[in-house]
């Protein structure tokens, strides 16, 4: 009852303040009138009675004010009043308000965006049913695991069957064999699709129900069963016309995966839109694990669902026991191997958590600078408002009120900054999926209630944090001093703002250095020597329909015919074939080298045409190109790249040396090196300086029926490309993928780096700008504060330089301290960036020198601009002022 009364009275007073106030006014007036009457009745004249009442009870106004001070709603009312006052004062200085709000807005927005990424990747449950019980199981060697903790180490089918049969920790274990090319023929063209094979229980294990039709059942995998397939939502939308009657229709495949029988797949279901698992497979086929398959053939990713209450450690122990048993019974396949169980998240969100946290840390750094900056601004304002505060104290405002007022002003800025930040984050979040591969795990990054809660908490915290120092200053306002003169207020404030500026400078320097490193890396990759010329270069994958058994020789014949036709096409400058196998040959090393030298990386071996280096625009550093004379019967030759020449024959001339290539130490070929080519960046950034060995296509072993074809065109001519595609289609009987511009694919490969570089550059510019503003504000403030002193000095004959020195000296010291601290922390912190950088070292001294130089230049400008004003102080006006 009491609670209800209290709430209803409070609410009434909050929302109908006029009624409540009138009620109280009436009561007070009545009280005083009755009091006066009683005095009159006691014999006083009306005037005397009123005087007596005032003496005895005080004035009616103060009584009313005191009586109005009760109840919980007063706190809210006071806060609202403080907020209104804060907004009013902020509106009176719009420049300050805008700068402060934008600073915090960008800082909060950046942090929020980074947080949304971390939230999606690392905190939110994966988009599967009871995802915390999902784990992945893999065979590993301890060394592999050390080298790459989150790599998808693969498992052999029979091992997975052992796990299924012998473990007790799991509700189920499923296996996936990923990314197998599947040729789909429709409308007399053949396309290459990505297909995954999964054990029938896979979708049930993840808790995924098909949108249409059914998932796999065990009978789909028995010999002679109807070949069935599930398709992805996108594939169904794009290629199957989103037909709701698609279940039961046929997908034609010209080649069956194992047998050489052409057999159509029957579509039995469409997967839901948001289903993704590791890659962009569009078709899923049922997989049967074969107990008699080779135990050395490890191709499966294995996923398990832990039983309720079972731990990962317990499951791992079970797997380790099984591995130990296998190592005894089958040492050939299992020696040195064990098995492990890890959260599924570790597999899906591949090892870039570090990068995400670095990004988050950097945005926090930006936010920190922004907060320090706003604190500095508030401090400057507090100093300017010292007289106001002193006046209010003199008029009866308590210290608590002043502190509360300052904090409320801070949170006002914080909340407004938070709103700006949400807008910024809404905009920035759209870029995230392009930059981090969110689709692999089916993750979505977006602004949701969690993020808004994060922003709300962050904004309030940040606003109040920025106001803490000024609030402390406000609390210790010295009435006497402040009212008498406004000259000495600056000294205490100066100490606090000195610290703020020094910290800002050092933080901005850390940002600058990090941005410098990443930008340089990007610029180097983008514009500097790639080792080849991506402009006018087009590539495609070459598959053939006419070699159904995947006969490599047949493929090679068709490929060469296609290449010859393309070379004759007008507009084509040159064309080359390229063939390489991911697994063959197992050994590529300098002839006669010690077999057991595990430290050197195995070079890649590519079979290429004589026109290869011309087509790519890769320079030959030594020796000769391949020629038409390097044919099958002639001496087997090779060209190595610079890195291979250096690692295979350190300190020696590579020309004339021999390379051994083969699948075992006894069976192989010796190639004589006739040339050394420049390193060319092709594919992953990290692999530019990977050793490579090239051999003539005509002399090479063709391992499988696939390869790529590269064209250099004289101009970017769509009709030439169309003609080239027509030739490929005619010769190979497939439509394969269209020619892809190397320039564009290079751009998309560089996109994440570009994004990192641009984002960090923006952050750094912002940090630099804020630091500059801090310096500018502080110097400008010092100049205003000391106008009178400067006037006296000028009147006494001080020179311009001396006057500038007077106001700038402090900043010089601060910049010195800030730069020193900044360089030290940058050296310590930028180490974490090494994993993002491929071309330069994080300790590159020039980046540090350049960052410090830029920081100093900006600091100099920010100091001199306001300091010059000091020299223009007119002695007469300054002395007359005040």
């Amino acid at each position, binding site marked *: 009852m009491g609670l209800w009364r*209290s709430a209803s*009275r409070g609410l009434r007073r909050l929302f109908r303040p006029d009624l409540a106030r009138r009620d109280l006014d009436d009561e007070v007036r*009545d*009280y005083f009138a*009755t009091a006066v009457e009683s005095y009159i009745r006691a014999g006083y004249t009306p005037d005397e009675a009123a005087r007596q009442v005032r003496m005895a009870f005080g004035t009616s106004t103060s009584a009313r004010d*005191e009586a109005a001070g*009760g*109840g919980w709603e007063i706190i809210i009312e006071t806060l609202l009043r403080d907020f209104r006052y804060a907004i009013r004062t902020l509106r009176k200085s719009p420049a300050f308000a805008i700068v402060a709000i934008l600073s915090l807005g960008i800082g909060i927005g950046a942090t929020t965006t980074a947080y949304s990424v971390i939230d999606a990747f690392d905190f939110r449950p994966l988009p599967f049913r009871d995802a915390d019980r999902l784990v992945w199981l893999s065979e590993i060697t301890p060394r592999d695991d050390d080298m790459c903790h989150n790599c998808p180490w693969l498992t052999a089918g029979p091992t997975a069957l052992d796990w299924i049969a012998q473990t007790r920790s799991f509700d189920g274990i499923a296996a996936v064999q990923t990314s197998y090319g599947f040729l789909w023929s429709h409308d007399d063209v053949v396309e290459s699709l990505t297909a995954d094979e999964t054990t029938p229980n896979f979708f049930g294990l993840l808790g995924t129900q098909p949108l249409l039709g059914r998932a796999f059942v065990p009978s789909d995998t028995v010999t002679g069963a109807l070949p069935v397939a599930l398709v992805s939502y996108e594939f169904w939308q794009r290629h199957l016309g989103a037909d709701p009657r698609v279940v039961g229709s046929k997908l034609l495949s010209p080649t069956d995966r194992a047998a050489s029988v052409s057999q159509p797949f029957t579509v039995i279901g469409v997967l839901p839109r948001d289903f993704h698992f590791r890659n962009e497979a569009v078709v899923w086929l049922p997989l049967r694990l074969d107990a008699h398959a080779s135990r050395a053939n490890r191709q499966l990713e294995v996923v398990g669902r832990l039983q309720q209450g079972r731990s990962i450690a317990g499951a791992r122990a079970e797997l380790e026991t099984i591995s130990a048993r296998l190592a005894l019974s089958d040492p050939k396949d299992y020696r040195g191997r064990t098995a492990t169980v890890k959260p599924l998240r570790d597999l899906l969100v591949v090892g870039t958590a570090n990068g995400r946290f670095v990004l988050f840390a950097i945005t926090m750094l930006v936010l920190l600078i922004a907060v320090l900056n706003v604190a500095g601004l508030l401090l400057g304002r507090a100093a300017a408002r010292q007289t106001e505060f002193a006046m209010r104290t003199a008029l009866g405002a308590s210290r608590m009120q002043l502190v509360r007022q300052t904090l409320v002003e801070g949170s006002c800025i914080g909340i407004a900054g938070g709103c700006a930040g949400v807008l910024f984050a809404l905009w920035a979040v759209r870029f995230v999926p392009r930059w981090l591969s969110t689709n692999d795990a089916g993750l979505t990054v977006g602004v949701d209630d969690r993020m808004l809660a994060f922003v709300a908490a962050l904004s309030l915290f940040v606003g109040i944090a920025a106001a803490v120092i000024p609030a402390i200053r406000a609390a210790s306002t010295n009435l006497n001093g402040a009212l008498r003169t406004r000259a000495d207020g600056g000294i205490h404030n100066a100490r606090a703002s000195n610290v703020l500026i020094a910290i800002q400078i050092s933080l901005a320097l850390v940002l600058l250095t990090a941005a410098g490193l990443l930008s340089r890396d990007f610029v180097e990759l983008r514009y500097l020597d790639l080792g080849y010329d991506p402009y006018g270069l087009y590539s495609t994958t070459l598959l053939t329909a006419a070699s159904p058994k995947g006969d490599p020789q047949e493929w090679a014949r068709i490929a060469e015919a296609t290449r010859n036709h393309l070379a004759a096409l007008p507009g084509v400058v040159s064309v080359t074939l390229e063939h390489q196998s991911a697994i063959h040959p197992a050994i590529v090393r300098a002839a006669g080298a010690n077999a057991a030298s595990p430290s050197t990386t195995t070079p890649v071996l590519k079979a290429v045409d004589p026109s290869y280096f011309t087509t790519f625009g890769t320079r030959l550093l030594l020796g000769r190109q391949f020629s038409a004379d390097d044919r099958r019967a002639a001496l087997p030759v090779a060209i190595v790249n610079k890195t291979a020449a250096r690692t295979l024959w350190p300190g020696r001339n590579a020309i004339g040396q021999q390379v051994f290539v083969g699948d075992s130490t006894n069976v192989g070929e010796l190639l004589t090196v006739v040339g050394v080519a420049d390193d060319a960046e092709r594919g992953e950034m990290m692999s530019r300086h990977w050793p490579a060995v090239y051999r003539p296509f005509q002399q090479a072993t063709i391992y499988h029926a696939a390869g790529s074809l590269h064209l250099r065109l004289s101009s970017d001519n769509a009709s030439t490309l169309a003609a080239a595609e027509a030739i490929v289609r005619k010769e190979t009987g497939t439509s394969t993928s269209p020619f892809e511009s190397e320039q564009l694919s290079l751009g998309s490969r560089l996109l994440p780096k570009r994004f990192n570089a641009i984002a960090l550059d923006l952050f750094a510019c912002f940090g630099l700008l804020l630091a500059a503003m801090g310096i500018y504000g502080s110097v400008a403030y010092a100049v205003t504060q000391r106008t009178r002193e400067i006037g006296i000095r000028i009147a006494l004959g001080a020179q311009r330089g001396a006057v500038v020195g007077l106001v700038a000296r402090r900043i010089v010291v601060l910049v010195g301290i800030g730069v020193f601290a900044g360089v030290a922390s940058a050296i310590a912190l930028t180490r974490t960036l090494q994993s993002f950088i491929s071309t330069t070292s994080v300790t590159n001294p020039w980046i540090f020198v350049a960052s410090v130089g830029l920081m100093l230049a900006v600091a100099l400008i920010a100091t001199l601009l306001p300091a010059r004003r000091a020299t223009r102080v007119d002695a007469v006006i300054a002395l007359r002022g005040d």
Partner: protein
Amino acid sequence: MPSANEPTTDVIQGTLDLLILKTLSLEAMHGFGVTRRIEDITQGVFRINPGSLLLAFQRMERDGLIDAEWRTSDNNRRAKYYSLTRKGRKRLESERADWARRSGAVARLLET
């Protein structure tokens, strides 16, 4: 009527509620009536600040100890009359017992 010469004192912290409850237990009263009654009975020892009194009224009303009602007073003036609720009476009993216990303890302490 307290004279300006006699020493007066502010109400002992925490006893204002007790005094109000006791005063209102006799009859419903308006604000100034409560002041007068307390001053009369204590012979002007306690001086009631109207602000504190009205604040206490509000608080006690919210706690459900007293009820308020606008009425016309003896001399035809509209005044807000306060009266004790059942809960207020109970509170008065417990406060009174509490006070007796405490003041007794203090008195004993001072006598020894």
